[in-house]
């Protein structure tokens, strides 16, 4: 896979994509991310707006039709799930390097 402009994902993008595996509206995404990150990541309004527009542009998320047109609900697409899989492999590899520790014999 050719390296995408948004890869590797920033912390903000990562959390948003993980959150919208369930359909969520704008402000609820911020709340969900705050819970998921144990209060560490609080996405500001402008950052969330820009991230959602960017993710929509690359069709990694989609807007779901709702009864109330004022309430915009977002959900990850298949393409977005593919991206998460690529990122998961990358992070798992890095984690495996952490777990292997320092190999004394090579020093």
């Amino acid at each position, binding site marked *: 896979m050719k390296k995408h402009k948004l890869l590797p994902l920033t912390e903000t993008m990562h959390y948003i994509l993980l959150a919208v595996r369930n359909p969520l509206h704008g402000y609820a995404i911020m709340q969900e991310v705050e819970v998921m990150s144990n209060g560490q990541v609080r*996405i500001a309004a*402008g950052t969330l707006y820009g991230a959602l527009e960017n993710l929509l542009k690359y069709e990694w998320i989609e807007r779901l039709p709702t009864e109330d047109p004022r309430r915009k609900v977002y959900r990850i697409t298949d393409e977005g799930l593919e991206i998460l899989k690529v990122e998961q492999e990358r992070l798992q590899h890095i984690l495996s390097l952490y777990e292997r520790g320092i190999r004394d014999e090579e020093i």
Partner: protein
Amino acid sequence: MKKFKLFMDIQKEEAWLNAMAKKGWLCRHVSSLGIYHFEKTAASEQIIRIDYQSFKNKEAKNSYIELYEEYGWEHLGSTWLHYWLKPTDGRDELFSDDSSQKAYLHRFLTYYGAMGFFLLMMTFSLLNNSSPYKNLKEAYFTPGLWEKEGGQFLFAFLFETPFALMRFGSPWLLLVWGIAFAIMYLKYLNKVRKVDKAI
């Protein structure tokens, strides 16, 4: 209290609006012409932020405003900029990570660059095209003006002077504006570079 003030630097404008709020003059509305409507308030624990966005369509603009409102930001109005007000609560920034902060600065950089380029190109094409701008005398178009004498001359001369000055002055005014935008462009370029270095 209504007030009009022209700012080149958006960050200075934002700082000024917040300094006014500290003094008890809270901006409650910004007209599309950029006139600030202030109200005298006792409680001034409010923060104003200025944002700059360009939208593909009306729907994109609506969803932008709705999202900010869900966060508790009150839309004070918009010129080419958007003005936002919120009680301070420790979440007073519009951007929470480096890449969106940088994208914000980049939008201004594009704006200043495009305006500066456009104004300077206008200036040069005006200066190249004709001569009324190099010699004030040639900015007077009345036929035979300089051959007239006495009262007749004075009347015709004074009558045309405002128009001649406008003709003569317009490219120089454009030049001053163009240079001002170019300076802002360089200033924001420097800001973007600083953010780049910090990452």
